[in-house]
C-alpha cells in the first residue's frame, strides 16, 4: 500500500529529466574551494596552513564542539588560499582553496568498489569513524549525523526511516544512488540500526521511482529487518515530519524532535556516507549532484568533489543558455538561487538547476482573494495567508497562536497562491520573530 501524509501537499510537474542517467564522475576541476561550515552548528576549526600539500581525505578543519563536523580535502594538491569568499547565501564565509595536483587519496581510504558486509562489533568504534568522516545529514540542514544517531538518555528508538523520497522537481541524485548503490545503503542502514540498538529499518521511496523500488525490494530480501515502503509522489513527502507520519501514523509534537516519538530519519545519501565512513574509512568529501533544469542542454547526475565550483559542472553539460535566468542550488522549492558561478558544491548540494525566466517568473503580487488554497496545501495545517497578512503589518502578536514556528518552509503555500503573495518569505520572517520572542522568555 502506498503511504502518504494526511493533510496538505501538492503535485507539481516532476521534470525528472535525469532519472535514467547513470551517475558519472564529474572529474577534477583546477581549483576547489571548500567552506569550513557545511553543516548546522559551529564552523570547523582550520588545522592546515597555506602552502601545505594535501590529499583527498586529509583533514582540513576539525569539528569545533559537539554540534559541528570536520571538513576534509576532496582533492590532492596545494592549499593556495585560506580566507573569506562569497558563499551560497551571499555572505562571506571562510573557504580553503586548493589547487588540484594529481589524484591521490589519504592513507587508509578504501577506494575500491568492493562491497564490505561485516559491520564492526564495537559501536564506539563505529561512532568514531562516522564522526571523524564528517558525516552530516545530506538531505537538508546538514545536522551532524553522530548526534542524530545517538539516542538521548530516557528515549527509545523504534523506527529507522531511510529517506529515499526525492519530491523536489528535477532532482534525481538520491534516486540514482538507490539504483546504483542499493546494497551499500542497506548495509549503511544496518550500521545505524546497530548504533540505535534496533533491528528494523524502513526504506521509504516515492512511487515515481519504480527502478529504485524494484532494486531495493529485491536486495532487502537478503537483509532481515530492512523493508521498502512505497510512498505517494506528493510534495513535500520527503520532509522529515511528513515522512514519519506517512510511515508510522505518528506526529512529531510541536517543538519536539523525531526521537521523542521513537523515530530517526536519515537521507539515503547520508546512509551511504555512513557506509563509506565505517566500511571504507572514507571521509565525506564527494557526493552525487543532479545538474539539470529546463534550460539545461542536457542533464546529468555527477559524482562531485566538495568544493567544485558550479561553473565547472554547468560547463560539463554544455553551459548556460540565453534562456537561463536562475541558477538554483538544491530543488526549485527549497533551494537557494545564486548568481555567483564560483559557488562551490558542498556536502548539502543535491542539485544545480538552470531554470528559465518563464518557469521562475515572479508575477506581481495582487490582493489575497481568500481562495483558501494556501491553507489546503499546507502540510502543517497552518494559515499562511493570516501569518503573511500580520507579518506585512508588522503585527507579531499572534505568532504563537498561529504556530508560525511549525512552518517547515516547504514553500507549498507560495507556490500555489494565485495572487502570488510571497507567503514563504512572510512565514520565514514570522519564524525568526517567534524565535526572538522565545529567547526573551
Amino acid at each position: 500500500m502506498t503511504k502518504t501524509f494526511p493533510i496538505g501537499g501538492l503535485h507539481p510537474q516532476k521534470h525528472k529529466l535525469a532519472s535514467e542517467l547513470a551517475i558519472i564522475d564529474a572529474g577534477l576541476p583546477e581549483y576547489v574551494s571548500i567552506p569550513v561550515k557545511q553543516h548546522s552548528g559551529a564552523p570547523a576549526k582550520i588545522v592546515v596552513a597555506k602552502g601545505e600539500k594535501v590529499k583527498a581525505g586529509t583533514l582540513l578543519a576539525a569539528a569545533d564542539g559537539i554540534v559541528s563536523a570536520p571538513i576534509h580535502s576532496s582533492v590532492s594538491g596545494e592549499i593556495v588560499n585560506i580566507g573569506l569568499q562569497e558563499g551560497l547565501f551571499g555572505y562571506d564565509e571562510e573557504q580553503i582553496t586548493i589547487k588540484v595536483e594529481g589524484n591521490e587519496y589519504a592513507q587508509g581510504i578504501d577506494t575500491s568498489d568492493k562491497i564490505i558486509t561485516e559491520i564492526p562489533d564495537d559501536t564506539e568504534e563505529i561512532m568514531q569513524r562516522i564522526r571523524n568522516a564528517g558525516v552530516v545529514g545530506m538531505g537538508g540542514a546538514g545536522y551532524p549525523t553522530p548526534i542524530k544517531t545517538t539516542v538521548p538518555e530516557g528515549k527509545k528508538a523504534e523506527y529507522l526511516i531511510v529517506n529515499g523520497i526525492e519530491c523536489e522537481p528535477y532532482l534525481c541524485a538520491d534516486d540514482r544512488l538507490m539504483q546504483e548503490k542499493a546494497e551499500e545503503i542497506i548495509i549503511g542502514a544496518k550500521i545505524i540500526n546497530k548504533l540505535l540498538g534496533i533491528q528494523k529499518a524502513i526504506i521509504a521511496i516515492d512511487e515515481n521511482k519504480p527502478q529504485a523500488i524494484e532494486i531495493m525490494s529485491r536486495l532487502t530480501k537478503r537483509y532481515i529487518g530492512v523493508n521498502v515502503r512505497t510512498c505517494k509522489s506528493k510534495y513535500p513527502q520527503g520532509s522529515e515530519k511528513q515522512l514519519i507520519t506517512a510511515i508510522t501514523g505518528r506526529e512529531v509534537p510541536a517543538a519536539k524532535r523525531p526521537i521523542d516519538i521513537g523515530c530517526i530519519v536519515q537521507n539515503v545519501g547520508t546512509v551511504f556516507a555512513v557506509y563509506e565512513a565505517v566500511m571504507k574509512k572514507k571521509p565525506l568529501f564527494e557526493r552525487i549532484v543532479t545538474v539539470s533544469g529546463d534550460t539545461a542542454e542536457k542533464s546529468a547526475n555527477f559524482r562531485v568533489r566538495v568544493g567544485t565550483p558550479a561553473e565547472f559542472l554547468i560547463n560539463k553539460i554544455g553551459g548556460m543558455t540565453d534562456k537561463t535566468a536562475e541558477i538554483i542550488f538544491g530543488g526549485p522549492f527549497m533551494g537557494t538561487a545564486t548568481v555567483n558561478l564560483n559557488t562551490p558544491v558542498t556536502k548539502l548540494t543535491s542539485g544545480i538547476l538552470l531554470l528559465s525566466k518563464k518557469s521562475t517568473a515572479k508575477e506581481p503580487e495582487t490582493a489575497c482573494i481568500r481562495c483558501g488554497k494556501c491553507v489546503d496545501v499546507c502540510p502543517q495545517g497552518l494559515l499562511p495567508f493570516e501569518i503573511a497578512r500580520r507579518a506585512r503589518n508588522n503585527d507579531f502578536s499572534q505568532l504563537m497562536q498561529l504556530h508560525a514556528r511549525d512552518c517547515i518552509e516547504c514553500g507549498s503555500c507560495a507556490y500555489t497562491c494565485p495572487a502570488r503573495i510571497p507567503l514563504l518569505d512572510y512565514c520565514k520572517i514570522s519564524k525568526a520573530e517567534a524565535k526572538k520572542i522565545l529567547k526573551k522568555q
Partner: protein
Amino acid sequence: MLKISSAPHIFSPVNTRTLMGNVIIALIPAILAALLIFGFSALKVLLTSIAACVACEYLICRYLLKIPPTTGDYSAVITGILLGFNLPASIPLWMILIGAFVAIGITKMAYGGLGKNLFNPALVGRVFLFVSFPQQMTTWPLPHPGDFFAPDVQTGATALGILKHLDGNSSSEALTKYSYSIDNMPNYLDMFLGNVGGSLGEVSAVALILGLFYMLYKKVITWHIPFYYLSTVFILTSIMWFYKETPDLDPVAHLLSGGLLLGAIFMATDYVTTPMTTKGKILFAIGCGILTVIIRIFSAYPEGVSFAILIMNAFVPLIDRWCIPRVYGTGRK
C-alpha cells in the same frame, strides 16, 4: 542575466486571472441559454451590467482611490455577469446602472476592493434593486426560445411565485392577471432546460450544471458547497413535502426553481465571501440551505437564495475562526 530570488523558485500555473477566466468560461453555457431563451433583451441586460460593473471599478480605482485599476483580474466582469443573471430580461437598463454601482462601488470597492468585501457584490446589487423596484424586479417575460428578437410583452410567473400567491395572500384578480394558477406550473423538463420564466441566468438548470462541472474539472472550486447546499435544500423540502407543508412543489422542483442552482454553483462558491477551509465551507453551505428553505416556505418572499447567501456571508468571519485546521503535532498523540 541571472537573477536572485527567494524560494520557492517556481509557481503553479494558476494565478488569479486564470481562475477568474475559468469562472467566466463556466458561465458561458448559462449566458448562451439566457440569450436563447430571452433573446435580444437578455443581451442588452448582460452587456449593460458587465460594462457598468467594469467601468465602475475602473473609475473608482483611477479617480477615487488613485491606484492602478484592478479590472485586469476579470473579477468585475464576473460580478457583471452574475448581476445580470439575477435580473429579469425586461428590467429598464438604467436600473442596472444603479445595481452595478451598489455591487461594485458600495459592496466591493468601499470595503477595499477584491478580497476585502464581506458580502457578495452581485447579490447585494440584486437585493438592492429588489427592494427598491419590486415591481420591475418581479415581472418576468415569458421565455421565447429561438426567437431572438421577439418582444418581451407577455409576462409570466415563476414556479415559486405561483406558490406564494396560491397561499391565499393575493386577490383573485391578481391571480388571473399574472396567470398565477397551478395549471401554469412548469414541468421538470422545461425547468431543467430553462423554458420557464425567471431571471436571466437562473432558468436553465442544465447550463448551470455544465458550468459546475467545468469549474470542478478545472479545480476552481471543490464540490463541497454546491453539494451540501443542494442536499440540505433537498432533504428539508422532502421532509416538508412529506408532511404536506408544501403540497404543490416537490423537492425536485425546489432544486430546479428560482436562483437555487445559480446561487449554489456560482454565488455561494465565491472565494472572497465564503469560508476558506473545507469544514467551514460545509457549515456555510448547510446554513445557506436551511435559510433558503425557511425563507422560501415561511416568509413573504417567494425567493430565498439571495438573502440566505448574504446572511451566511455575514457569518463567514465567525465560521473561519471556528474552522481553523488542526496544526500538525498539536492536539493529537
